[in-house]
């Protein structure tokens, strides 16, 4: 029956002719082979929000690094205090773009004086450069704190994941306990104690230049914030070892080095980078919070939090001094968060379900 019907089917014999060279060329679409990284970047640049926040963050970072080098004023220089001269208090509390008496005199004499864009603070320091320098400190603290968290978390997490058994159990119980501690209170407690303890211990060493408060901040991050990173990395190691594609690679005779290079690292690295990137804004958050309570950077070094905290004293007459660092912190934290989210969407589609 079936065979009977066959001849009735409309068959166009043209379809069975061998393809000509042009037809072949038309069918083959040449596309440059795309790597994981390129794919991710393409997705990242397509995401407008993430792209814009990346630009903002890059601009802020570049100006925080390079502006202090070319700026005519420094963050700690009290402009009214010059050796051999009486203190010129007309430098203190200048409004934005205002000049002190001696500067005004120099301008009237035809000299050009670099303007104080945001005015000066109560001690006669150029406020713009203090904000820029504070941004630099805040960004640096956020960045290095995240690196510390990454190193500690990666070490302990991979030890727990690879060793398994009792070692794993002990590390994970420690993680559980630290996780359930109220982190902010513990941070405040440790910060307030450590600045006393570290101050004398650091004296005379290189670290003293950074200041005991920042060092204690780093120690706190190393002590308390590695948990989620350790959990993440342990989980990654445990689950990746069981994946079918790893088994398949082993079955086809792949060597351990190849599996690590081609399968484990690409699958793990994006998650690690993303959570490190998302750690930066939370570290900046913590630093500014502590600085606001007076537990942050050592004076006269500014950070965005300590600038805001100082500005609180003169809030009714000089409210812009609080608004400026506040806006910068919010911009940085918002930008980093949105960029981190964009990174996650671009490089780890699995997480975004």
């Amino acid at each position: 029956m079936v065979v009977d019907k066959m001849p009735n089917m409309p068959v166009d014999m043209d379809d069975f002719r061998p393809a000509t060279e042009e037809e072949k060329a038309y069918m083959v679409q040449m596309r440059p082979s795309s790597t994981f990284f390129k794919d991710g970047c393409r997705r990242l640049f397509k995401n407008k929000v993430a792209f814009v926040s990346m630009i903002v963050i890059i601009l802020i970072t570049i100006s925080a690094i390079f502006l202090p080098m070319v700026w005519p004023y420094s963050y700690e220089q009290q402009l009214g205090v010059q050796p051999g001269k009486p203190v010129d208090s007309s430098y203190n509390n200048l409004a934005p773009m205002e000049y002190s008496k001696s500067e005004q005199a120099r301008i009237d004499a035809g000299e050009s004086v670099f303007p104080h864009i945001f005015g000066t603070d109560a001690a006669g320091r150029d406020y713009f450069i203090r904000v820029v320098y504070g941004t630099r400190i805040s960004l640096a603290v956020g960045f290095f704190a995240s690196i510390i968290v990454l190193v500690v978390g990666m070490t302990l997490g991979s030890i727990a994941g690879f060793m398994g058994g009792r070692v794993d159990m002990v590390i994970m119980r420690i993680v559980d306990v630290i996780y359930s501690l109220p982190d902010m209170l513990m941070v405040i407690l440790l910060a307030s104690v450590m600045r006393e303890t570290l101050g004398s211990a650091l004296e005379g060493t290189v670290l003293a230049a950074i200041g005991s408060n920042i060092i204690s901040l780093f120690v706190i991050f190393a002590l308390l914030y590695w948990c989620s990173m350790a959990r993440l990395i342990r989980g990654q190691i445990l689950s990746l070892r069981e994946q079918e594609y790893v088994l398949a690679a082993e079955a086809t005779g792949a060597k351990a080095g190849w599996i690590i290079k081609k399968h484990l690292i690409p699958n793990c690295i994006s998650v690690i980078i993303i959570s490190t990137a998302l750690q930066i804004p939370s570290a900046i958050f913590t630093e500014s919070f502590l600085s606001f309570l007076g537990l942050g950077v050592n004076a006269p070094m500014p950070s965005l939090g300590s600038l805001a905290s100082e500005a609180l004293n003169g809030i009714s007459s000089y409210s812009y001094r609080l608004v400026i660092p506040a806006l910068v912190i919010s911009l940085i934290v918002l930008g980093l968060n949105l960029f981190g989210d964009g990174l996650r969407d671009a490089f780890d589609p699995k997480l975004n379900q």
Partner: protein
Amino acid sequence: MDSKTVSYILKRIVMAVFTLWAVITITFFVMKAVPGDPFASEKAVTPAARAALEAKYGLDKPLFEQYLNYLSGAIHFDFGPSLKQRGRDVTAIIMDGMKTSAKIGIIALIVATVSGILFGAVAALKRNSIIDRIIMVMTTAFVSMPSFIMGSLLLILFSIQLGWLPANGAAEGGLILPIITLALYPMSYITRLTRSSMLDVLGQDYIRTAKAKGVSQRDVLLHHALKNSLIPVITYFGPELAYIVTGSLVVEQIFAVPGIGRAFVNSITGRDYTLIMGTTVVLASLIVIMNLVSDILYKVVDPRITLE
């Protein structure tokens, strides 16, 4: 409740007690690590007077005995006398500050939860509309603003520029701004939480079934959608309280509210170690207990959830 739930709850309680013990122990030993002694600031303390002081505060005993004394004191809510405020017990100072702080905290908690759920539900129902967009932009901005910045900006806007509300927390109506400051962040968080879980629930089969059976839109929302989409909000109660407690530290500082947060911050700057220890333990216990309650509630409310 089946036996599994009961054993989970018991496990959770043991864990919470252990955490509390860890907090007390860490606080004690960290404070003991501070160099110098609490009486260093006193003017010319004679050795005899120092010995008398140490005996009075029990500092002459071996470290482990001091620790046991402190532990039993903490259990009985007795943290000894304040080192800087003469003649006052830490417990009395804490209770004093708690009156104001609890008022602010509880009102902020309620305001944040209720308005967060409301905004979240509205945003989910009017998905992609202009209202949804506005709510999402606002909440994103609030979530990335540290509490001290939010407080300062509100202070500048409403007290200094507009003059509507007093800047001092002790004045009449002075607690309104601190409450708003504390509530904005958790409110935004709950809004986002409710919105996403509501969108999730609205796509479920049982909602379609209910609609197909002719249940009115109002009943579908109130009885089927809202109830289930509020489950994730319960898990946020613990972190929410933790946020409000830590937020109150700076907010009370900004608005000069005479609460426990300000006492804590002042104790840090004034190096009043017994007060630091006492407030840390009390605030930490609050957070740990709230985490415990919200975890247990989560489990009891939704039987589908299986926890190890």
